């Protein structure tokens, strides 16, 4: 027991030492950012042009290096594969002189900005993304202007590319202008979006969509839903809804637009068919329709099938059944195999089925 503990301790200690050594070796390493496709020169510390150094990348020797480059390392038309930790050692002592973390990437291109208000009239949020990846750390600055006023912007706690703004006033004709500036070590770029208050309004989809069959009504389905919980004031800013439904087996949807009501009864459903149903929401006056709600499945009420009485027959009776009685008696036959003495019955059933097949063919 003690031995295991000791050896475990040793392993852990060794690991800690390795990590510490690695960290130490990277301490004092500086990061050098370079553009993809460019020619890069790395300088070994403050050594003069007469110095002779050896370069290693991630611990392995650098290939194809010119001998007369002095304290420099030149790389041509770099791509992402040159990323790594470069170390230079002075010749002939082998002393470590400098360490550079090379990161290759691109300056940002104009960010693409979109904004939406799903909490009208409280506020809106904006998202942005870069059309091309930069591969290196990039920061974003957002500013929002409304007429002549600068608005306060709240960064989203989770999404790095999103921010929230409170609407300072409503029914305004002044446009909003959202500016996003992306910056990294290789450059910066700005993109913007200008919009009217009402054009970005788009609620979240309705919630808790439920469809229930109605007993006694084989062609009806009762659908109910809730307004989206993110919409702050459905009393003063009522929503209208759009319902679509179709049987699973068909491709075309049926549509129904509803004002100010969170329930609807479908009355023309095909009996016994499973339906797929979705609902969308929109402010009654402004903005655009929400995305469709999660699709729900429902089947209208089906009448209970009438009881079929199965009479049990003996082996002898079964052997005498003629082909013409095949269909009607098929079911009771199958039912019988469950009850009686197995072997002989199974055999006669098989013979029987073979006869049928032969006859059909």
């Amino acid at each position, binding site marked *: 027991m003690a031995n295991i503990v000791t050896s475990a301790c040793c392993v852990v200690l060794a690991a800690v030492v390795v990590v510490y050594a690695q960290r130490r070796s990277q301490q004092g390493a500086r990061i050098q950012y370079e553009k993809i496709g460019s020619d890069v020169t790395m300088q070994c510390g403050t050594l003069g042009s007469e110095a002779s150094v050896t370069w290693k990348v991630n611990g392995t020797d650098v290939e194809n290096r010119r001998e007369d480059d002095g304290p420099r390392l030149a790389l041509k038309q770099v791509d992402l594969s040159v990323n790594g930790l470069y170390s230079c050692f002075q010749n002939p002592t082998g002393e470590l002189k400098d360490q550079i973390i090379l990161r290759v990437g691109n300056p940002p291109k104009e960010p693409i900005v979109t904004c939406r208000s799903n909490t009208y*009239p409280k506020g809106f949020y904006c998202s942005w993304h870069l059309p091309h990846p930069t591969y290196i750390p990039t920061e974003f600055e957002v500013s929002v202007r409304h007429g*002549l006023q600068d608005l306060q912007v709240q960064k989203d706690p989770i999404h790095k590319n999103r921010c929230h703004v409170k609407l300072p*006033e409503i029914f*305004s004709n002044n446009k909003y*202008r959202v500016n996003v500036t992306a910056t990294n070590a290789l450059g910066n770029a700005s993109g913007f979006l*200008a919009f009217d208050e009402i054009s970005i309004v788009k609620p979240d989809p309705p919630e808790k969509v439920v469809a229930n069959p109605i007993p006694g009504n084989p062609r009806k389905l009762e659908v109910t839903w809730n307004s989206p919980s993110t919409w702050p004031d459905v009393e003063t800013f009522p929503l209208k809804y759009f319902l679509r439904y179709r049987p699973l087996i068909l491709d075309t949807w049926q549509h129904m637009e509803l004002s100010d009501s969170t329930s609807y009864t479908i009355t023309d459903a095909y009996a016994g068919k499973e339906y797929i149903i979705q609902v969308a929401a929109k402010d009654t006056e402004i903005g655009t329709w929400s995305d469709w709600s999660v699709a729900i499945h429902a089947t209208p009420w089906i009448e209970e099938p009438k009881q079929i009485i199965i009479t049990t027959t003996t082996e002898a009776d079964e052997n005498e059944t003629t082909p013409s009685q095949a269909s009607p008696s098929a079911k009771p036959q199958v039912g019988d195999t469950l009850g009686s003495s197995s072997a002989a019955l199974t055999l006669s059933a098989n013979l029987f089925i073979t006869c049928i097949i032969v006859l059909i063919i």
Partner: protein
Amino acid sequence: MAVKSDLLRQKQGLSEEFSYDEVDGIPSSGVSKWNELSDEERLRANASAFHSLHCFLGIVLKEQREDLTPEDGEFHEALLSLLAQVETLAESTKQLLLMFGHVPPSNGISSPEQDLTYFKKKLRGYKVLLELSTWALRATRDFTKLQKQSTRITSTMAAPAMRSASRQKNQKKRGGYGR
């Protein structure tokens, strides 16, 4: 309506950055604590705005006829129809105010400037219609709120006012100012 005003703005060479503060007396529909307005404040703001807009619209129609679009009879007809609706709206709102025992806004608004340059006339006409459309939207919301929280007296009187407001909105959507 927003699409039509954008079209107009582009055609008349107006930049997107324009600030629509109440520079020349045209009532501005933007409001910061709309939710906290009292019933009286709501009605009064609407009554005052529509009265003022009615006045401005009259002048816009006159300028269109005499100076800016003298040939466009169809357009003038549309503006005339709009004018009538705004008048109804202004009156209905004023009546509501009186019904509730509030004092209606004084009609003594300084008359709008008449001798503007050609460009300024165009600009003002655009602004009047823009504010009219957002006021109509605001009125719809105001009356919805009033209807829901007030007595049936409001319902009886608010209904025609609301209908007028939404009819007016739809009229503009169909191209009251589609140049």
